[in-house]
């Protein structure tokens, strides 16, 4: 066995976050090497370093025993490394041929496209992939999800790469398409290609991989031969961090329902979800990326189209509109704070007062500035927002303080149910714990909280109940005081066998 790619103490530092910390392992020539880890473990960053989309802060790589330092995707491609990213990378309005040959369009003299060559090479590659049913002249947007995935593999083959990186390749595929893809991957391996296969679906890792590397919080946990490990062991490796830091005391929720959800369905995103959030309850929603939990959060707020189902508050069925949801006392903190949560170029004061500006102004719409000032001041103080002043623009605040401002705006509007979508994402540890205190206080004051998060310790430490979603369905409803991270992960992954439901 020779070493194809060796990583030596590879680190990547982002402002405020160490995404990868001294990662060292090697990928053997001709193997399928699995890479697993929770969301945020550093898998994506690692792929970007290898494929030249990012440069490491420190550390080295060696490809075929020669130093390898890609400074752009082009250099990685030239070195024989192709990457199939999770994000869609096809050209929606271009036909199959142009998609496959992107960046490698065959030319005659004078940069004239060689259509004959274009067609025959695409045909040959699709035949190799056993995908002759993909029509060459179809636009990519008209293809099925599985076929689009094949396009990207085809593109990698055109590049004649010797190492192929696949990031969550099956995420958008149905069972049949997955099987077809597995067959393709096995063929590729048989033809001598080395593959780095990233997936959070452990059964895929066990079906395909020869060895597997586990990342957690940017650190390498271990690399093991697949024959010498078990799913249980991998799950423990993935979630095995300690429940660091004390979470605030949980209060006792009341039995009075605030928000009732009945049979909520939205196409492929989620199906037939029913639950109730009570006064003072913190309800957690767990699940892997793509499980539908973010969409559910949006839908509860009326911002995601529903097929069927009802959201009931105080005996009234809520119409599907964020405006009405706000009127009824529902608030929503989006996960993409900078894009959707706050107005970066508005002042702290205006960010807080915005939802209630109407009540702060007279008939003519003139804003009573003193009242606005007082309201904003009150919440800045209560949430301990660190800002030089109320007139400061939000873009000058730290992530944690921005998050507080976006929460303050809903508290000021006296919301009764607060939906938090990944509220502690991208904020530093200190701010996280302040935020946890805040959530606990809100629940004590009788608000209903829906906490959507990928961080299991956070869910366990804050929530009363946790709904685990898998592929749009409710996989389990767990009592947070009687469960643990591994159980949640099992349900999220679909390995609940021999685990009893604790709810």
């Amino acid at each position, binding site marked *: 066995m020779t070493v194809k790619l060796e990583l030596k103490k590879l680190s990547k530092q982002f402002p405020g976050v160490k995404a990868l910390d001294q990662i060292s392992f090697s990928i053997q020539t001709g193997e399928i090497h699995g890479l697993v880890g929770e969301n945020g473990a550093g898998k994506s960053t690692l792929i970007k370093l290898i494929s030249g989309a990012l440069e490491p802060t420190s550390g080295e790589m060696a490809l075929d025993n020669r130093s390898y330092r890609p400074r752009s995707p082009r250099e990685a491609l030239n070195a024989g490394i192709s990457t199939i990213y999770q994000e869609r*990378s096809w050209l929606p309005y271009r036909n199959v041929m*142009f998609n496959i040959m992107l960046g490698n369009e065959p030319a005659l003299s004078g940069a004239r496209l060689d259509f004959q060559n274009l067609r025959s090479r695409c045909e040959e590659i699709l035949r190799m992939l056993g995908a002759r049913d993909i029509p060459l002249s179809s636009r990519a947007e008209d293809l099925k999800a599985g076929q689009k995935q094949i396009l990207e593999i085809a*593109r990698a083959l055109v590049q004649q790469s010797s190492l192929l990186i696949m990031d969550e390749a099956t995420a958008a595929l149905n069972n049949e398409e997955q099987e077809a893809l597995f067959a393709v991957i096995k063929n590729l391996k048989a033809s001598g290609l080395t593959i780095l296969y990233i997936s959070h679906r452990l059964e895929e890792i066990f079906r395909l991989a020869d060895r597997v590397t586990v990342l957690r919080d940017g650190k390498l946990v271990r690399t093991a031969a697949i024959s010498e490990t078990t799913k249980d062991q991998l799950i423990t490796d993935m979630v095995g961090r300690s429940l660091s830091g004390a979470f605030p005391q949980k209060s006792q929720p009341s039995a009075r329902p605030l928000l009732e959800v009945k049979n909520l369905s939205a196409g492929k995103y989620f199906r037939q979800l029913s639950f109730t959030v009570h006064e003072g309850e913190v309800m957690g929603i767990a699940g892997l990326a793509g499980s539908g939990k973010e969409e559910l959060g949006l839908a509860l707020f009326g911002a995601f189209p529903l097929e069927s189902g009802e959201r009931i508050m105080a005996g009234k069925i809520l119409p599907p509109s964020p405006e009405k949801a706000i009127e009824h006392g529902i608030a929503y903190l989006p996960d993409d704070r900078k894009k959707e949560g706050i107005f970066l170029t508005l002042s702290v004061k205006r960010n807080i007062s915005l939802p209630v500006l109407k009540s702060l102004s007279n008939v003519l719409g003139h804003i009573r500035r003193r009242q606005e000032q007082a309201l904003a001041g009150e919440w800045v103080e209560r949430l301990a927002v660190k800002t030089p002043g109320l007139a400061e623009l939000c873009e000058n605040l730290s992530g944690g303080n921005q998050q507080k401002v976006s929460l303050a705006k809903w508290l000021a509007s006296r919301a009764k149910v607060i939906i938090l979508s990944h509220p502690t994402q991208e904020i530093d540890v200190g701010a996280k714990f302040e935020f946890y205190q805040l959530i606990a206080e809100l629940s004590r004051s009788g608000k209903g909280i829906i906490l959507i998060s990928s961080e299991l310790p956070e869910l366990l430490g804050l929530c009363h109940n946790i709904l685990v979603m898998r592929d749009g369905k409710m996989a389990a409803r767990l009592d947070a005081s009687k469960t643990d991270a591994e159980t949640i992960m099992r349900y999220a992954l679909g390995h609940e066998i021999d685990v009893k439901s604790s709810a």
Partner: protein
Amino acid sequence: MKISRAKVYEFLAENGFIIIFIVWCVFLTTVTDSFLKVSNLMTVLRQASIVGIIAIGETLIVLMGAGMDISLAAILGLSGVLVATTIAGGFPVFTGLLAGIFTGGIIGFGNGILVTRVRINGIVVTLGMMYALEGVAFVLTRGQTISSPAMQTLAPLSRGYLGPVPVPVLILFLFYGLAFYLLNYTVFGARAYAIGNNERASWLSGINIDRYRLLAYVFAGLLAGFGGVMQTARMGSATGAMGSEFLFPILTAVILGGVSLSGGKGKILNVLIAAVFLTTINNGLILLNVPIYSQKIISGAILILALSLDRLRNVRS
């Protein structure tokens, strides 16, 4: 084959203005005697030539998702002024012609550098450039009309005929032939579409996006410079304000022609048809003896109607 509703909408969004164009032509043919005459049709095409040629450059920029060049009309103006002053200053006509075209190219290069290297939004860069260039054109002409007998040498470029076909119309078709070839049969074209379709995927596939976008701005500048030469040839003179009338039709031809403003989608021949449609509106209204101010109302209304079709695409999503 099943045709989905979405496909129908999309077809209308991309080609719907052609239907309105045809209806308008049929209408003009029935109510006027002169519309369908060869001489009138040639007049329409000749009037469409300069706008059409510059719209090719604009299409390239928009297609690559590189923003939009607002300054092309101003480049035309400045280059026209330079052509006239060079020739009036006693230089050979050919020197004047080259000065006009190359000035356009250099300004386009400047725009492209500001957009791709300094990373300023394309519309902002070219808006600023537009004002600056107009200023330069006025400074050079001191507000006067510039002309000289030597400029008659340029006249065939805009008033000449090759058989029954006016020279500018010939040039128009030649350029569209080249542009069609470039976009559909070359690596450059394939990548231009790719960049507009998915910028990130193109970058990850090793395509130098900035270089392509820079080239688009240079091409657009060169074509606008050439447009300045043609306009000066047509008028036999140049003024500081000669570019301004082109701003609106250039942008309209590209949008009306169905080039997606977010890039990646659009047919160059539709842009040609749109440019011709625009001149047909004016031509028809003159034939119908519509008073000049009412003409504006009607041409505005027809444009809005045609552009509304573009919204169908958004309605469905």
